[in-house]
């Protein structure tokens, strides 16, 4: 089975039903995507498959095979942070940071679909991502900040 992650192709064998999150973390050493609940309820494991945010903890490997997968590790390019990553830093949009990769990937999926989402739209799109530290207001601010930066085209 071929798995294409962050532009790199990996040859994988074994059970095609095992979940994508475990493959990324334990087999490919891409530990940026986090385990939080194992039932697609917290969003900490979010990755993009063909540009759409997906909960990798409930996604079987076979579903992800041969599709372009982007994880948090693949978001920056040539050492330049993605505007969302920069915006999370600028807005101080985290406390413990454990939910942050999933938050950023969900937001990346949203911004790919909708360049300038209003707050209610962000709230709806991010409803499946839990920040137990309660940093929600700052995360909304960060997503808006990133949308503005991407609109100005200030990113690479």
């Amino acid at each position, binding site marked *: 089975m071929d798995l294409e992650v962050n532009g790199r192709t990996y040859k994988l064998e074994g059970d095609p039903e095992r979940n994508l999150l475990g493959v990324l973390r334990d087999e490919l050493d891409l*530990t940026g995507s986090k385990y939080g609940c*194992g039932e697609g309820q917290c969003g900490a494991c979010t990755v993009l498959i063909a540009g759409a945010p997906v909960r990798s903890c409930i996604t079987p490997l076979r579903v992800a095979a041969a599709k372009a997968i982007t994880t948090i590790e693949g978001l920056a390019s040539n050492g330049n942070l993605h505007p969302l990553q920069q915006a*999370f830093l600028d807005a*101080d949009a985290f406390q413990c940071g454990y939910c942050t990769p999933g938050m950023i990937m969900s937001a990346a999926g949203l911004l790919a679909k909708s360049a300038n989402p209003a707050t209610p739209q962000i709230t709806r799109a991010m409803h499946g991502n839990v920040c*137990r530290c309660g940093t929600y*207001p*700052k995360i909304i601010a960060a997503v808006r900040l990133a949308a503005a930066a991407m609109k100005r085209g200030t990113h690479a």
Partner: protein
Amino acid sequence: MLEPERYELFSGPAYQFTPDRRDFFKILGGGIVVLLMLPDQAASQESGVSARTGGGTGLPKAAAAWMHIGEDGIVKFFTGKVEVGQNSRTALTQAVAEELHTPVESIEMVMGDTDLTPFDMGTFGSRTTPTMAPQLRRVAISAREWLLDLAAEQWRADSATLKIDNGRVQGPSGKTASFGELTKGKNLVKEVGAGPVSKPRGESVPKVNGRAMVTGHHPYTPDIKRSGMLHGRILRPSAFDAKLTSIDATGVAKFPGVQVVRDGNFVGIVGPEAHTLPRALAAIHAEWKTEPQPGSKDLFAYLRPAAPPPAAPGTLEATYNIAYIAHVPLEPRAAVAEWAAGRLTVWTGTQRPFGVRTELAQAFQIPESQVRVIVPDTGSGYGGKHTGECAIEAARLAKAAGKPVKLVWTREEEFTWAYFRPAGVIDIRSATGKDGIITNWEFHNYNSGGSGIETPYEIAHKQIQFHAVKSPLRQGSYRGLAATANHFARESHMDDMARAAEIDPLEFRYRNLKDPRMHAVLEAAAKQFGWGKSKPKPNHGFGIACGFEKGGYVASCAEVAVDPGTKRIKLERVVTAFECGAIVNPEHLTNQVEGAVVMGIGGALFEALEFEDGKILNGKLSRYRVPRFSDLPKLETILIDRKDLDSAGAGETPIVALAPSTGNAIFNAVGVRLRTLPMVLPGTKT
């Protein structure tokens, strides 16, 4: 001082010895070391709680903090505190950078490593800012003065004419020296004691390791990988206190490389692939003997079986109930354990690295010197990660396997085998004079705890008591401890008393308060909210509440909306005024206040553990609702900066006024007083 309700804590080790001076240079290399020696922290923190040797007067001294400047000029500070999302790493780095006149980026803060950092009781009770920050400042001031002396010696100058600017020592004639040039070839240790420090500048410095978090590169415990490492899983009993009566693990044989580890009631498996372990675990057939246990349905009657005797006429009485809730840290308990030559190293997310070291040493009957606990910056705790269950389990598996083992608890395990915020029953009786002055106050808390139990109001006759009860569930610390429960009961009751006296709830509080700091937060919150200026819309309500805990003052004004059809309650707006002395980092303080308020929404409106006969019935995120984006009210936070006062911690206190201000707003909206946390209106459609 430990609150007695921190049930999960053991007492610390009896003695703490400062490492031999030569050891510093063996471990850290040459250079200079500043040691802050204070009366033994362990002994003084524990005094009055447990009978330990060395308590009372004449406490032995122990190192509370230290720093090292290497011959390469690298500056490292060492503290036993840990970073669990409260931004202490940034706050502490900021504090020492200010004193050392050095950029924040040039400082490495080594935290929570029992081999490298001084002993610390743990990161809890909002003590990092008031205690550890001034201690590290003291160390940084001494280091600065020492560096100036070293430069003065080298340049034959008066040290009073020298200064440090942007991490370099500056001489009068344009001479400069890096720290490394001054510490080269040195092997010097200096001891300092307590002394005056500067107040924080109060700047918003960004999170020092923020970049690693937004790129996914920060290694939390579950992300750590060791050479030859195996993965582990534990076979859990069918209920709390269940005894294993029989086990058949032959089914595991069909999973290559998976090994069963059995030691009494402890059964676990290890294997090279994490994804095969759940199925291998399911192949074990075990029988458990269980006993009937109290459940959540009859919980409050169990906690306080006998109703109080009849009250005197003219008394306002009420009973409040508090459910058990879970911390739900997004990073569940996790540990990586490795044995080498009889010595155990464990990476784990805990708020008490030294406490977990003690637990490990006791569990394996080895000296504490043979155990090292390292705490990577952790995916939160909220008081829920004081204990070492997962560390002990991982270490037991690793010992049997002869290889490093990683164990990450599932969410269901975290919901079941961690500990919970105590449930409780609170009875209040009060009397108020015609002038709106409270004359009598009787307050009994069963089981939930004593934090925040004292009333901040001036009352002539008070009887306030905490009653310990045998808890049906394992319980322990939670952000704010019982202050949330006690404030919920007290501040809800304050509103009922104000209404009975026909006085506005804010005015009623003012009339019974003397503390100017409490008055100030109430006034600030009320002004921002526009208290008394307008009437709520239909099905909306306004509520106010205030509180004091751990050196901080908080007042919240809430607006709720109740859906007339579904009866569902939505918080629309929360104004919080908070004062905790001098502000260290306004941005991060706002985050702590808002985070506490958002976390408080869960306990106020929907979080409650359901259990029966030793089983948790809703132990997963799909069955246990935590606050999400859509629950977010409009948040307005007012920080009152008291530069003239010492800084208190801020991680806990802002949570305490949320539930009662919400309850008071619900009453204002629909005329129903909800006296049970979480607050759910009768007939709510979910």
